[in-house]
């Protein structure tokens, strides 16, 4: 579907969290499931979005992570509250291919749980099946406790100032970590004596320094939301079955063909997509052309009853259409009359 020449783009935790935030979007589910490069696709459709990270932020993130993990993991263990991690194991997790690495990780997790020793897994690989296609996830670290508990460690480079960090960023980190916990639970289910902690360790720079500080973040809520949303995702095969014959997202094809293929899968655009999806500009343009009012915000739909397009709302407000007995239409007409009256009184227009 993505074309024979293209390598599949693996799903990562961020993409899964975004997908779980908008489970009604078949377009995103299909494109992600098929491993299509959405950024390149959006560019081919003429609606590219800015992407990529500043190299300053990238360098800082890497340097901070290296610092946190330095000294054989002692610093990280101190943040976990373990002053003297004697016999801390750091198993080697390298293997060929994501499948190999995932298997190696599962093996290391089992061994560590049986050995009942502190173990730090640096960049383990976890596999999770989402909507019928496999996703590979790479948490920053996982710590195995001697009692068989597994804790996800998430290292972020935004600061924790006076022990509080930007709520939006913490929320995003928690949603991402919840996906890791979900994937770990599948491994734990096959491991005797293992249990995955429902809270994760978030490590951030302290104040304006480069010293790490950490906070335990409870992700039970994010976990249940993500679990429910991911299970609600329509299976990719079912979406693909509704595609017209021969539809393809091969980037070698012409723009018109791609456009037709993309438009044959329905999207659920909302302004939040702008921060989470490379296709957002394309979907927004389509939503605007259709006059879909959710392009102005999800909350608008609630108060407008069955009216879903801008022109229908305006027509109802002006008394050109709509049933006046419908409470939504009646409220709109009153609102329009009050607004017009107030503007007239103020001498505008």
């Amino acid at each position: 579907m993505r074309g024979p020449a293209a390598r599949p783009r693996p799903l990562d935790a961020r993409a899964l969290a975004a997908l779980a935030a908008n489970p009604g979007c078949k377009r995103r589910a299909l494109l992600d499931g098929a491993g299509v490069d959405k950024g390149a696709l959006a560019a081919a459709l003429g609606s590219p979005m800015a992407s990529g990270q500043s190299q300053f932020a990238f360098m800082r993130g890497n340097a901070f992570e290296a610092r946190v993990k330095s000294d054989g993991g002692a610093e990280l263990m101190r943040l976990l509250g373990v002053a003297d991690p004697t016999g801390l194991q750091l198993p080697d997790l390298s293997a060929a291919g994501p499948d190999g690495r995932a298997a190696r990780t599962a093996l290391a997790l089992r061994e560590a749980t049986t050995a009942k020793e502190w173990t730090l897994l640096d960049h383990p690989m976890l596999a999770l099946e989402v909507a019928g296609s496999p996703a590979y996830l790479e948490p920053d670290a996982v710590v195995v406790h001697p009692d068989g508990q597994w804790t996800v460690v998430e290292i972020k480079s935004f600061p924790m100032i006076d022990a509080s960090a930007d709520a939006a960023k913490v929320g995003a980190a928690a949603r991402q970590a919840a996906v890791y916990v979900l994937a770990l639970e599948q491994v734990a289910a096959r491991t005797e004596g293992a249990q995955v902690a429902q809270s994760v360790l978030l490590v951030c720079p302290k104040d304006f320094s480069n010293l790490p500080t950490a906070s335990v973040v409870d992700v039970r809520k994010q976990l249940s939301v993500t679990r429910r949303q991911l299970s609600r995702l329509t299976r990719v095969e079912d979406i693909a079955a509704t595609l017209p014959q021969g539809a393809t997202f091969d980037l070698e094809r012409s723009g018109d063909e791609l456009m037709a293929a993309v438009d044959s899968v329905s999207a659920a655009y909302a302004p939040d997509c702008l921060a989470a999806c490379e296709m957002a500009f394309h979907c927004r343009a389509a939503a605007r052309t259709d006059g879909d009012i959710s392009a102005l915000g999800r909350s608008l739909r609630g108060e407008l009853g069955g009216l879903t397009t801008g022109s229908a709302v305006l027509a109802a407000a002006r008394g050109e259409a709509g049933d006046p007995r419908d409470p939504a239409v009646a409220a709109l007409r009153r609102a329009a009359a009050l607004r017009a009256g107030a503007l007239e009184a103020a001498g505008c227009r």
Partner: protein
Amino acid sequence: MSLITTLARLEAVESGRASPLATVRHRQLSEHPLVLVPLTTAGEAGAPLGALIGTDRQQPRLLTVAQPRDRELRFAFLAELADAVLPYLEAYGDDVELVERNATDAESGKRIKEEVELCADAPQLIVPGRAGIDFVRLLGRSMRFRRTVEQDPDAAYPAPPHVPLLGRWLTHYGERARVPGSSLLLAATDLLNRHWATGQSSLEDQHLGALLAWIDPAEGESGAQAALRAESYRDPRGQLVCPPAGPATDPAFDNRLLAPAVEAYDRVRQRWQAAQDGDEADSWMGELAIAEREIRRLLRTQMEPTWHSVWRAIDLARELPEGARVADRWTRDRWSFTAHRDRVRAGEPPQPRRDDAVTAARKLASRETAQAQLEAQEALDDPLVLAGRRLSGEAFIGEVTDVVMAWSESKRPAPRPLLTFHTDDRPHLGERTKVYRSLDGKPQSAEFVRYETDGVLVLRLTDRMGRAKDPAEGSVPEKGDRIAWTLFEHDQRGGPKLPDPEETPWTHGGPPGTDAESPDLITPEDLL
């Protein structure tokens, strides 16, 4: 979002131009605001990259940091920033008027009048967006605990003079920006969003360029087109035509232009430091100046469009007439400024890292009062805002159709005239619900008596008619008067007064205040 706002947005979609959400200006705009357009280094906390600042739109002052990881260069930047901001703030501190206010005499405990100073005007700071307000607060936090050589001769990395003071002022402004209706520190996007509805979502409205594109599009272009251009058009070098309003920069700018320029600067500086003799050092010094100039030029290209956008936003908002009660809220801002001036002059320590329980409770209570007051005042100033309250049944407008004199049944009968009132609005009135109208700027109250028929109701006027048996002239409406009544009070009285900190029981006082003054921990390399 109320239905009226929704309609305004949809009208904007249809017409391709923003539509009005207010008929008057609800925020104070100083005659000489200080505009600040800051930039920060991606991924670093409190590592500013540059700023355009000034009160003269033609001549902004450009401040830059050639290598944001260098503590010396950052300190030099902050010192320059203090030099640009503090004289502006201090100029307002000495122009005062004397105001009488009630106080309690410390010795006798009697109520007395005392004269206190109130600054005649307050300095106003305007940043491009909400992220700018957060950055002001962050800068304040990063500076106010620093120590200068004078304060602590043993400090490992002493800050330049005035930097901790600037930190305290920026903290005060950042904190004040959280009070609803305050205008000391404004974001240009908030200013525009309060007065206009665009045809895009409120999320997209945070982009200053796109927002201006809707409100003020070029001739023959729709707002949506202009906004798209502002959001996403790039030049052949892959740079945004309208750079983000900051403080975050565009990653493409960082990677393609800024990073190579900073690297070049670093290389030249290493050579300069390694130079063997004076002549060689001098020539590298020249190279260094060239490299630094290039970085300054690059940063200017990123900040200048935003600088002009902020001033354009100020122009647009100035075109609206000021709301009648804006000056009242600005007086509160002046009090806030004066109070902080006094704290600084009295040599009090910087604001603590975290408020104690008593301060937090006070702040919360005053912000709740300010919110209610803002909502009431905006509705009274602006028929379009009032329309929203009428739609939700919290206000009604109509005409007096009859006035019948009546008196209260006490020993000294007081006038309690009954008004018959016709309105098409549908207020949520219950028995004896109090309603208010504005009489010469003061609220007069009445209570609901009964409905006569649909749309005709009877109100009993209850105050502001003088002490005599007959009401004072002009205090009772006459037949044919059009009146706007509100169900909400006009003057917000805060809840019951909180006890003084000393009187607060230990159960409510929280833990005692801690090391408010201790400086932050500093490591040799405080950035990675």
